[in-house]
């Protein structure tokens, strides 16, 4: 078992005809992901180099009808990405992974109520995607070779930090059930608490590493959830201890405003919920690996 994506995933890629889209679609496929369609408006029937056997459709609805897709991966440029998400939600896809960085907040405010009403789970935007090593499924851009199957769930606001910690876990012999990058934007679909609930319910996940950063209160909400509901061990690393206040640090959502959103406050909330907080990403990986039942 795993969360969000397993061997039954049939993935359509929006923006597969573009440079990043085609490149990373080939890598997803090399990992073992079933890529069943590409979608680019106005490019139906197009052939993509190295993906000749993957049909390209004008719309998500066409791709679902013809290729039975149940998940989407979005590489569409920011001005068009909100519409891409809406198309997936309208088609009733189970999981929508949106990698696009820079989608306007006002677009996301318009999109989120419709995603929630649809029952689709949105991962991102501005995220690296979801990887389930045991089922050879990767939707997004995470480096496949650092992963190995195992019992650790990873959930993160940062792509790079995810890879860093997955590499350390793998080196420690602690493989992963599923790794989830929820994205670095202020408005995202699934949040820490949603993904923690999935890991808590997944029989194959025996512990979780949570990778947070400054900004917002998602880590504080995660701490409250862990304290009240979680039975599995959790370790964490919070990036941005050295970040100056009132500056946006790489991610649109990574900003300390006034007294809220600072790394020490998040670490304190997590510690008081019984979470093992690491000094470095490697330390967080070691803390969890040592506690695996």
């Amino acid at each position, binding site marked *: 078992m795993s969360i969000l994506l397993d061997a039954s995933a049939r993935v359509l890629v929006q923006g597969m005809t573009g440079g990043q889209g085609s490149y990373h679609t080939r890598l997803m496929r090399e990992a073992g992901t079933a890529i069943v369609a590409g979608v680019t408006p106005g490019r139906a029937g197009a052939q993509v180099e190295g993906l000749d056997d993957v049909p390209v459709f004008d719309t998500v609805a066409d791709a679902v009808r013809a290729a039975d897709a149940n998940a989407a991966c979005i590489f569409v440029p920011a001005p068009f990405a909100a519409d891409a998400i809406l198309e997936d939600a309208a088609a009733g896809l189970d999981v929508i992974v949106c990698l696009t960085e820079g989608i306007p907040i006002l677009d996301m405010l318009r999109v989120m109520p419709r995603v929630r009403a649809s029952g689709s789970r949105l991962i991102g935007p501005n995220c690296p995607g979801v990887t389930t090593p045991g089922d050879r499924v990767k939707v997004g851009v995470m480096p496949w070779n650092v992963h190995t199957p195992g019992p650790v769930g990873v959930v993160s606001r940062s792509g790079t930090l995810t*890879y860093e910690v997955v590499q350390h876990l793998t080196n420690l012999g602690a493989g992963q059930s599923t790794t989830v990058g929820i994205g670095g934007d202020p408005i995202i679909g699934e949040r820490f608490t949603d993904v923690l609930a999935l890991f808590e319910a997944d029989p194959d996940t025996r512990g979780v590493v949570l990778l947070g950063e400054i900004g917002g209160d998602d880590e504080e909400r995660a701490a409250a959830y862990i304290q009240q509901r979680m039975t599995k061990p959790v370790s964490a690393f919070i990036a941005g201890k050295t970040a100056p206040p009132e500056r946006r*640090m790489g991610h649109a959502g990574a900003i300390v405003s006034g007294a809220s959103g600072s790394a020490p406050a998040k670490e304190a909330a997590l510690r008081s919920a019984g979470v093992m907080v690491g000094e470095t990403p*490697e330390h967080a990986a070691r803390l969890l690996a040592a506690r695996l039942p």
Partner: protein
Amino acid sequence: MATMDVIQHHGGQPANFLDVGGGAGVAKILAAFEIILEDPRVRAVLVNIFGGITRADDVAAGVIQARARLSRQVPLVVRVAGTNEAQALRLLHDAGIGALDSMDEAAARVVEAAR
């Protein structure tokens, strides 16, 4: 951002936080070096990229070009991993640039170099 934290963890002081962002290519890496080296207080540069959407070999090519064109020479510590890691390490090796494979080790090394 975590790179800054790890530098501080090893007793160093980050002068500049420059996130090249997802999918950075050669031109972006070149520009990044120019911006960073405008600050005369910078005594060493750490490049730490774990590529997902970013391809490590693009970063390596950028670092190699930047080193050849730098207006001033400072110690350079490079750590690249992730997408196209093997190609990146080969490029760096052929250019005579040693690369480290751990962020902790790279941070410790750059702090040492800046002293």
